[in-house]
């Protein structure tokens, strides 16, 4: 009896959802993350397919796997190499572009959050989130130098 009374009380509690002003940003961030994941993974999958079309030997050759995954393997790891690989329609370059987009998704999420906080006029969090974004961009630039 008491348990039943508790559970009806519980279902009423659910109506209190979205009481806080942050509600819209949650939907925005959630959609951005989903879109970033879907687009980037589609590119990764397409790139893999392209790789197998260009190199049918990859379907059964054991030697190829060792060459592709051992230290010193040749794959694009600068933006210039990615671009030239894309122009040559190389599967690995398409995969790397998809992976870079996946890596960029959390960074875009931070940028979108700043916009959200500006709309809310939340000064403290505009500063906090901007510093996080700046640190992220610095890390990318530092990576290029080294």
């Amino acid at each position, binding site marked *: 009896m008491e348990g039943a009374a508790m559970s009806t*009380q*519980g*279902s009423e*509690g*659910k109506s*209190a*959802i979205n009481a806080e002003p*942050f509600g819209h940003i949650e*939907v925005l*961030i*959630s959609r951005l*993350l*989903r879109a*970033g*994941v879907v687009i980037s*993974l589609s590119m*990764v999958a397409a790139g*893999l397919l392209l790789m197998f079309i260009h190199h049918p030997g*990859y*379907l*059964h*050759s*054991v030697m*190829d*796997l*060792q060459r592709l*995954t*051992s*230290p010193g*393997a040749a*794959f694009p*790891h*600068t933006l210039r190499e990615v671009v030239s690989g894309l122009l040559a329609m190389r599967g*690995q370059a398409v*995969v*790397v572009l*998809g*992976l*870079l987009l*996946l*890596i*960029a*998704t*959390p*960074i875009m*999420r*931070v940028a979108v*959050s700043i916009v959200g906080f500006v709309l809310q006029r939340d000064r*403290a*969090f505009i500063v906090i*989130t901007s*510093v*996080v974004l700046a*640190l*992220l961009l610095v*890390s990318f630039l*530092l*990576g*290029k130098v*080294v």
Partner: protein
Amino acid sequence: MGLLAYMSPLEFILTLFCISVVAGFIGSLIGLGGGIVIVPVLTLLYGIDIRYAIGASIVSVIATSSGAAAAYVRERLTNLRAAMLLELGTTSSAISGAFLAGVLHSRRLFLIFGVVMGCSALAMLKRLENRAAPAAPDAWADRLHLHGSYFDEVQGREVSYRLCHTRLGVVLMYGAGMISGLLGIGSGALKVPAMDLAMRIPIKVSTATSNFMIGVTAAASAGVYFSRGDIDPVIAAPVAIGVVFGATAGSKVLPRADNRLIRMVFVIVLLIIAAQMIWKGLR
């Protein structure tokens, strides 16, 4: 040697995809990001160089985070404001950690990774008995409006909670981010106990918030790993795709999951892998 010597690229990609689904599922449930499974699998099972394994695991962390967070944020399990404040600590330290990894020797990385995993397991085991105590008043949490609430499906009601020790939390996140950059793990194993034990955030919110943050932490160091040539597309591609499938499934399970059982199983798995990594590092 590992399985690498007996497989074609196709077999490698298919098997790694399946393992990554499991890694993403577990990672999204416990807030660890899947890297904690991916690195030992790649190095111990396949015999892949630790640097490529860490590069792939950085990608897997971002994939788990974005895949699961899309659901957790919408269901308001994630504490967005706390996450963004704590990201100050994790992003700044991840940069320094990634540079250290290029300097340190591979064998030492195994050893450090093993010890970190062992400590994470013990911290998680401790949490089984640790019941939530009322939060101490914290002016920073009040000023920044970090307190929150979420709907708990197991309890069937809206649960309100208050945060404390905000500044200690940011410092702990700096340490967690440093280890994340060093080892290419999401460091959720360090973030979740910090949020749970120090800041008194409910377990499910800690897990979901950790899941949200690890993507940004990993992205901060991913640029360094990419330009150093540690992200091999043939290895990272099946990991990224598999992990997202697993994480999406995991995000549907967490709101209804029995935390104690999952945690116990994972602690055991973690301890076994930690012992293997330490053994490989000492040999």
